[in-house]
């Protein structure tokens, strides 16, 4: 072979390689999109814009919750170079060994990514530190918002927020680690409205994660949308008053506006200052609160189940009247051998029986409701009667979960045929087995919210609106339909009037069990006392009421644990609440009553023998 023709071989090799490279470059640069996308992801970072959480107001425009800026000191270890550590420690007011510990922790997390160095420094510290921070590269301040409660009350209603946990993140993909979410109260119920929508800012970063400018000049950025403002039905002045009245006592107060179902106040005692469960303080305070034997975190108004006691007689009376087994002038002797009672003249009408709260009277009423002589066997008869009775009681909102806009509401319990069949065996029980239900004792359980709802139903003479907190949501016109639907209980108005007569008598007539519920002559209060038996100690004091009698504006239920007779404690508390709401003051003559209530400490009452 002619050696010089080898030049072609060598040249060919050069050419082939060149073509190969060009082909490869063509593939990589022009044909394949993958690298373009990868270059974007290398270089682009998304910075989340957190929206401000929605504010909450009371019915009169008083601010209940707002957001306060909190400042976290962040650090990116790689960027920290040549700083005067001692000076920084003095500025931050921490010891050098603490500083080193925190710094090492940040380094272990990542040299390039920011991590929290100091959480929630006060705004005063922030001002001082911010001025000097330029001397310490690698450190910067990140603002967050925390909830602040200017009124220090309504903790159970408002609830609190906390960091979202892993389970929730998996179920609700909107949330990311580090987000806040409402955990209880209205913060929980209206989480989706309050949280707003996150925005995103896209920035360019270099290989060390340093921000270098806006991606595509901010074209792809989205604005954060602040959370909706919620106006609640709460009357914060009334609420605070209720909380004061209930200090050093256990129990609850629920106040509703009957013609709308709007909740004016919801007190659970003992309670706590909502500012205790904010930000850094949660870690310290939550264990204290949850271990407290008096259960301040427990919302008694929604979750404490009690047997209703004598206030239930109102329901029994109305069912009896509606069923036609009694008339408004039915009379029964106070036969204490049937069931115990206090001394009083014979009740010769329904109204009187309500006024004097006669137990044997209702023994008879209930017997007639249950055993209406439709069949011969009393067992079968009771079954039929109980079925009708359970059905009717539930229509009042008992034994079911009221759809109020708060989480964790108990439904209480109304026993029915199935229950007793299981308990005693079918055909083995009759009225005489379950007669304690006649006076609101036995296997029934109600929560204070349901009691207040009963009061509202009576005030309305036959229907109720589901009690609720939401009055108005910013950017939306209507309140949810379920809150504006009239729920009729299926008992005629005139029977209500009969019972209301009795409730009037409770307060104003002799023999009435709650004279302490009087306010003054210009306001007519109707109420019913209850004394719920407590096998573990002193009886519970219960009172439901509404006022004024004509065109009622407020319906109230008060429940005080271990306080003895309903008329002694619950009734005066109810009347003070009503007076405060209707007149925005307490009349002089009632101040002694008020003082007595405020001074009372019923937490450690010695049980009666």
């Amino acid at each position, binding site marked *: 072979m002619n050696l010089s023709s080898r030049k072609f071989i060598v040249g060919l090799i*050069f*050419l082939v390689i060149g073509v*190969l490279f*060009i082909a*490869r470059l063509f593939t*990589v640069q*022009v044909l394949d999109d993958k690298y373009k996308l990868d*270059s974007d992801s290398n*270089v682009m970072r998304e910075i989340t814009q957190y929206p401000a959480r929605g504010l909450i107001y009371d019915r009169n425009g008083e601010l209940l919750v707002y957001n306060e800026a909190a400042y976290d000191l962040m650090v990116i270890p790689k960027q920290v170079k040549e700083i005067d550590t001692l000076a920084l420690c003095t500025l931050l007011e921490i010891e050098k060994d603490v500083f080193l510990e925190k710094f090492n922790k940040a380094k272990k997390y990542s040299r390039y990514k920011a991590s929290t160095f100091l959480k929630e420094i006060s705004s005063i510290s922030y001002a001082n530190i911010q001025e000097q921070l330029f001397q310490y590269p690698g450190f910067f301040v990140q603002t967050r918002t925390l909830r602040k409660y200017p009124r220090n009350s309504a903790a159970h209603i408002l609830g609190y927020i906390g960091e979202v946990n892993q389970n929730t993140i998996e179920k609700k993909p909107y949330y990311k680690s580090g987000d806040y979410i409402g955990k209880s109260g209205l913060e929980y119920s209206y989480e989706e409205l309050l949280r707003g929508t996150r925005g995103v800012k896209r920035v360019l970063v270099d290989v060390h994660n340093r921000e*270098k400018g806006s991606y595509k000049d901010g074209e792809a950025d989205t604005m954060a949308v602040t959370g909706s403002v919620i106006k609640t039905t709460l009357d914060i002045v009334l609420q605070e008053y209720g909380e004061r009245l209930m200090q050093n006592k256990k129990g609850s107060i629920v106040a509703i506006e009957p013609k709308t179902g709007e909740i004016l106040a919801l007190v659970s005692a003992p309670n706590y200052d909502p500012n205790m469960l904010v930000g850094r303080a949660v870690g310290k305070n939550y264990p204290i609160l949850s271990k407290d034997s008096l259960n301040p975190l427990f919302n008694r108004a929604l979750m404490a189940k009690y047997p209703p006691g004598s206030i239930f007689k109102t329901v029994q009376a109305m069912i009896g009247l509606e069923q036609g087994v009694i008339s408004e002038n039915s009379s029964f002797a106070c036969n204490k051998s049937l069931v115990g009672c206090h001394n009083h003249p014979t009740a010769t009408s329904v109204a009187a029986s309500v006024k004097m709260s006669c137990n044997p009277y209702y023994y008879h009423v209930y017997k007639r409701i249950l055993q209406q002589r439709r069949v011969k066997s009393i067992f079968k008869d009771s079954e039929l009667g109980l079925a009708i009775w359970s059905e009717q009681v539930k229509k009042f909102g008992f034994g079911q979960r009221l759809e109020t806009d708060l989480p964790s509401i108990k439904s209480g319990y109304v026993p029915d045929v199935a229950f007793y069949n299981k308990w005693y065996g079918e055909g083995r029980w009759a009225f005489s087995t379950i007669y304690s239900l006649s006076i609101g004792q036995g296997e029934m359980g109600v929560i204070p919210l349901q009691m207040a709802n009963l009061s509202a139903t009576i005030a309305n003479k036959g229907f109720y609106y589901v009690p609720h907190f939401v009055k108005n949501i910013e950017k939306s016109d209507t309140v949810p339909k379920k809150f504006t639907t009239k729920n009729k209980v299926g008992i005629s108005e005139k029977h209500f009037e009969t019972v209301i007569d009795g409730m009037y008598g409770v307060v104003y007539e002799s023999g009435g069990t709650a004279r302490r519920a009087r306010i003054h002559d210009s306001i007519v209060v109707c109420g019913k006392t209850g004394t719920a038996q407590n096998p573990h100690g002193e009886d519970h004091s219960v009172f439901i009421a509404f006022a004024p009698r004509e065109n009622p504006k407020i319906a109230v239920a008060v429940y005080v644990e271990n306080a003895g007779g309903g008329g002694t404690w619950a009734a005066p508390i109810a009347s003070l609440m009503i007076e405060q709401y209707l007149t925005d003051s307490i009349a002089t003559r009632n101040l002694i009553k008020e003082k007595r209530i405020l001074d009372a400490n019923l937490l450690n009452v010695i049980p009666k023998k």
Partner: protein
Amino acid sequence: MRNYKNIFSNIDWPTVLLYLALVLIGWVNIYAAVYNEDHHSIFDISQRYGKQLMWIVLGLIIAFVILLVDSHFFTSFAIPIYLAVLLSLLLVLVFGVKINGATSWFQFGSFKIQPSEFAKFATSLALAKYLSAININMKDVKTKVMAALIIGLPAVFILLQNDTGSTLVYAAFIFVLYREGLSGNILLFGILAILIFVLTLIFGPVEIILVTTFSYIIIYSMLKYSAKTALIAVLVFSGLVYGFYSFELSNIILYATIGIGLIGLFIFLVAQKEMKGKGVHYVGVLIFVLTCAYVFSIDFAFNKVLKEHQRTRITVLLGEEDKLIEQIEGLKLKRDERGISKEDKQSIRDDIGAKRFSLRELRQGNGWNIKQSLIAIGSGGFAGKGFLEGTQTKFDFVPEQSTDFIFCTIGEEWGFIGTFVLMCIYIGLFLRLLYLAERQRSIFSRVYGYAVASILFFHFLINIGMTIGLAPVIGIPLPFISYGGSSLWSFTILLFIFIKLDSERLLVLR
């Protein structure tokens, strides 16, 4: 009589222009690669782009000086220059400083110089001198050994400096020797060896032995009929293999089978021609045995001799990262299947963990560089992102942006248009140099010319190949473009000696 007009009138201006174009491209792209807003002037000496200008200017002065020197200087002093450089290579082992793991630099104050850069043209001169002597024939064993020595000594010394990249450059001289008469079979042999090397690493020694065995058997038996039949048989066999494997393995095995077959075929044909009669059979068996030994030795050397970071360079190239990612995805699917026992799930989890660990190691090693390099180049698209607008470059995602990976900046900012133009300039330069070398009257000049073309080509091959993922990460500069005084000057000297030789070619007596 020497006057300036004469000196410059015979210079090959196309080559000089190509040189200037590359130098300018280099300077501008170094500016883009390490652009610092605080020092935005391209003439800023404190930055690399300002410094590069200094090197360029000095380089031009050196070039000028070389053009002034009589070409006989180079032919006469080839050997002394070579020996001096060889000495410096030894001395640097003793007196030099270690930079980036290689003891290759002399340092005088802040001034650094790398003798291995100068060894390139020194060896070229020495080789040219040797091969231009009377009675030299590449077919002689003595010639082959001497040539190997001239090339090998500097290579070994550089290897001792721990600079594997620069050592590898000496493989370029094979083109020179080939042109001067070295058997082409050696070239083919080389290609076959590389092919088998790569395939063994991808598929494992056993598979490759099987493939080669079958290839050889077929070729051997088919040779009884004719070379054409053997060729067809190889293609058919390859097709069958491909069909059998196509669902699992990539096209590589198809090409591999064809490639091995073809090359084996050529070797057999050559052997047949050289040795008539029974000898052919022995050659056949010998070749087969040697192949097996070679395949196993590859496996051994790879796993037991090479260091971890060197292994990763190669495995990364072979797509290990993508393979691992695919495997992890597959395992994740398996893990999430219903009805899987707890132990199985746990062992799958362990598997995923181990693979993720390997992946991380891979990425932290050189896999990262290649990936970033490809991303930078690939994201340039057809027309590039624009001067100074390369995001990957701007934000330092590619390491060694102004030196080994300078091509990434070009790719990202000038796109396919830019890279295509650059390819054309380089290939143009190489082919021009070949053309010039062929028109030389003296063997010295021709050999030297081929050496220049080959060395430049080799740098081009490895450097750019590395950035586009076709060659392992070996740090050698891109001629005239990468930042650095030493490399720029040594390439300039290398080139301009040849330009000078070429300009005086007509003065050579036949």
